[in-house]
């Protein structure tokens, strides 16, 4: 995995919840299953298995309500875990994926930061899978903008 490069996807969102609760939303099986989605999907409780620690993992299956044959298996192998603050690892997505999405693995990093008034800032970082990024995995996103501009010039 390209673990030292800059993430190609960076999202920031502030939630109206204390940090410990927001962290639980990602690390408690019952809580994650209640909102993770995608919309219309269910996460069968008996296929959720969490072992949240450095070197541990989170596993679950997303089952499409519209087409139960579409079953996506997610395994998040955790390399860095700081209780209430950080989840970082490689997410393996396999199984029967919807509409042409190929199985992939991608590094994902979730940081939980305190904000004023008991709110929490979530920082999501995600890296392009190797097969999409290789051989030049840097700054694709900005490059598209540049390329568009160059083509339009």
């Amino acid at each position, binding site marked *: 995995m390209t673990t030292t490069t800059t993430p*190609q996807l960076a999202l920031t969102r502030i939630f109206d919840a204390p940090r410990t609760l927001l962290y639980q939303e990602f690390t408690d099986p019952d809580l994650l299953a209640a909102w993770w989605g995608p919309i219309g999907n269910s996460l069968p409780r008996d296929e959720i298995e969490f072992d949240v*620690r450095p070197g541990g993992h989170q596993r679950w299956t997303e089952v499409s309500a519209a087409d139960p044959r579409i079953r996506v298996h997610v395994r998040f192998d955790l390399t860095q875990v700081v209780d209430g603050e950080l989840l970082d690892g490689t997410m393996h997505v396999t199984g029967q994926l919807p509409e042409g999405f190929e199985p992939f693995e991608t590094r994902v990093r979730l940081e939980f930061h305190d904000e004023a008034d008991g709110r929490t800032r979530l920082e999501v970082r995600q890296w392009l899978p190797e097969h999409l990024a290789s051989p030049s995995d840097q700054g694709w*996103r*900005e490059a598209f903008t540049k390329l568009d501009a160059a083509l339009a010039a």
Partner: protein
Amino acid sequence: MPERPSGDLDLLFGALADATRRGIVERLALGEATVTELAAPFSISLPAISRHLKVLERASLITRSRHGRWRRARLSPTTIASAATWLSRCERLWVERFGRLDEHLARLASQEPASLPETKTKRGKR
């Protein structure tokens, strides 16, 4: 709203930071071409064009194939498009998740504190 990632853009920006190479990319957007065809609009030598093509190739912006004695260059739109599609798709998934998480937090907040899950402080410790 999502922020733009900042990154080390050496390879791609380096490749696109040159007016001649951008011209070559523009030309290739219309279809593949030989070195001679690519050189036509520019007042530079064929070896110079070849060097520019090497830079673009190294940045994975183009690929080159050999047909007989002519090497033809073409843009690599699939690489670019598939990476772009994948990223925008992932971004959309996250934004949707954030919306559902907001709603779930609101549902939790409207419930009795007693129905909140216990804090599992010892969870996952070795």
